[in-house]
């Protein structure tokens, strides 16, 4: 499975996608469903699409979004409204048409023989983990989830996780659900109690880095999905590099998922959101 974008057989597609639904799921967070038959058929967990949101004379670079779920001819994207592009995205309604390049990136690429996996999601980091949780539990892998958010309402995709995971533990900054504090408290505990064979993390880089350290101490391999600003999204422009022990790699084609121990945490992540 996986490694779709890498194995010679598969290529990214440029697909005209149509909005099927676009709903607010939390404060400043939306879930958009797109009719994208060819991408839906090819996409693997952890891969993303590079979406052209702007229309008409308006110039705007594409925006990268993980595929949160994929089924039949539909893909779902879970997005947080931050600026110009996601504002426009939030304004899309059923029938609107965009174009998307995808599937892009390496995906989580879970080796066979994994029996128990721990997924750690911080905020919108839940997005690329949704599809993974579904596919793994379908494969009979035991899934534990540690999820964190500012407040309970922002624990996006929590239902999805609860429906497929063996255990979901949460933390919120305001204590409105689960532990008060950071998700790292929960992930640390689950590392001890559940003894997973693999940890997959997505969230703010500072949190991903902390979880990677926990996994390393526990001697558990760890994968992190990293964000970079992306212009082309297909490996050509070198705007998205991540510094690794094997040199600078492109998050859009060599990532966004990396082995935690190869990542040099150089603080080059995207500026903090507001």
């Amino acid at each position: 499975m996986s490694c779709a974008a890498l194995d010679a057989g598969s290529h990214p597609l440029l697909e005209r996608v149509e909005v099927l639904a676009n709903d607010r799921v939390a404060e400043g967070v939306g879930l958009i469903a797109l009719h994208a038959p060819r991408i839906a058929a090819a996409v693997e967990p952890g891969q993303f699409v590079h979406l052209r949101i702007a229309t008409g004379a308006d110039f705007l670079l594409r925006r990268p979004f993980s595929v949160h779920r994929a089924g039949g001819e539909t893909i779902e994207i879970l997005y947080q409204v931050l600026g110009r592009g996601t504002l426009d995205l939030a304004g899309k309604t059923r029938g609107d048409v965009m174009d998307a390049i995808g599937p892009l990136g390496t995906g989580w690429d879970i080796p066979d023989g994994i029996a128990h996996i721990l997924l750690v999601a911080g905020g919108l980091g839940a997005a690329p983990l949704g599809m993974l949780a579904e596919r793994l539990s379908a494969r009979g892998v035991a899934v534990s989830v540690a999820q964190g958010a500012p407040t309970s309402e922002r624990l996006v995709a929590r239902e999805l996780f609860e429906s497929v995971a063996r255990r979901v533990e949460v933390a919120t900054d305001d204590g409105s659900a689960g532990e008060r504090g950071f998700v790292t408290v929960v992930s640390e505990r689950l590392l001890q109690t559940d003894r997973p064979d693999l940890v997959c993390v997505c969230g703010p880089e500072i949190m991903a880095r902390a979880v990677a350290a926990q996994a390393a101490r526990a001697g558990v391999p760890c994968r992190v999905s990293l964000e970079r600003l992306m212009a082309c999204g297909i490996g050509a422009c070198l705007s998205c590099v991540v510094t690794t022990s094997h040199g600078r790699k492109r998050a859009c084609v060599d990532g966004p998922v990396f082995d935690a121990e190869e990542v040099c945490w150089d603080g080059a992540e995207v500026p903090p959101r507001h």
Partner: protein
Amino acid sequence: MEQKSPRVTSGADLSVEIAGLRLRNPVMTASGTFASGREYADFVDLSRLGAVVTKGVSPMAWTGNESPRVAETFGGMLNSIGLQNPGVEAFCAGDLVWLGSQDVPVVVNVCGHSVEDYVRVVERLEDEPGVAAYEVNISCPNVDAGGMAFGTSCAPAGAVTAALRSVTKRPLIVKLSPNVTDITEIARAVEGAGADAVSLVNTLLGMAIDAETRRPKLARVVGGLSGPAIKPVALRMVWQVARAVGVPVIGVGGIMNGADAVEFLLAGAAAVQVGTANFADPTSTMRVVDGLAEYCARHGVGRVSDLTGALEE
């Protein structure tokens, strides 16, 4: 921006000749925005391009600048990639081999920190049959030594050009910086030193700040501005340079569609390059080719080269 248009086949002769180089049409890729074309092969028929201009190639591997390396601005973007590339050896062993299997002329974009650097790259490439021409980048705003420094005054610009002229008979295109008081001076200097053509513009030095975090949006603080926002400046400089030099001018800066390309030709360009547009729409180069053909058909233009300098003032 236009949507992908169906391929237009018109009677017009789209071919152009630049510095002894016959191109199928005047539409090239802009260096650094298209890598070597491999990534775009899924979206673009490379054999329908006038030429592929590669990412900048230096004597040794360059790691480029820290991230973030790009920031979007109004009608454009800033980049501070910093000419990251694996060096000329790796280029010859990798991309150049792949390009050899493609039916498209290859223009290698050359960069360096010193005159010697430029010379070493070209000397190494002279052994390679698959190179149609060189584009000498003396205008990159994103490296400290060399780069733009060579492109902002006449003497060094002429010196790099003359040094390269002495080591190659292949067409030498010198890429000029817009960050100068008088670009025609630089153009005349490189023409005098043996350049067969000039391409312009490279990016305008710019900056973006995130008011909320109070931090520059680029790790390097400043970067190169490209995209439709700079088209009026690029067009003006092409118009000025085309009247100042005898060698062909290749126009680049904010070209998004066929009409933009026509504007550059009318201003005096013999060919054009498409850069940032590829990011918004990976098929942009094809739309430009089709748009040019459609324009020629609609206006009864027999040879696209007749448009060069045909501005009615």
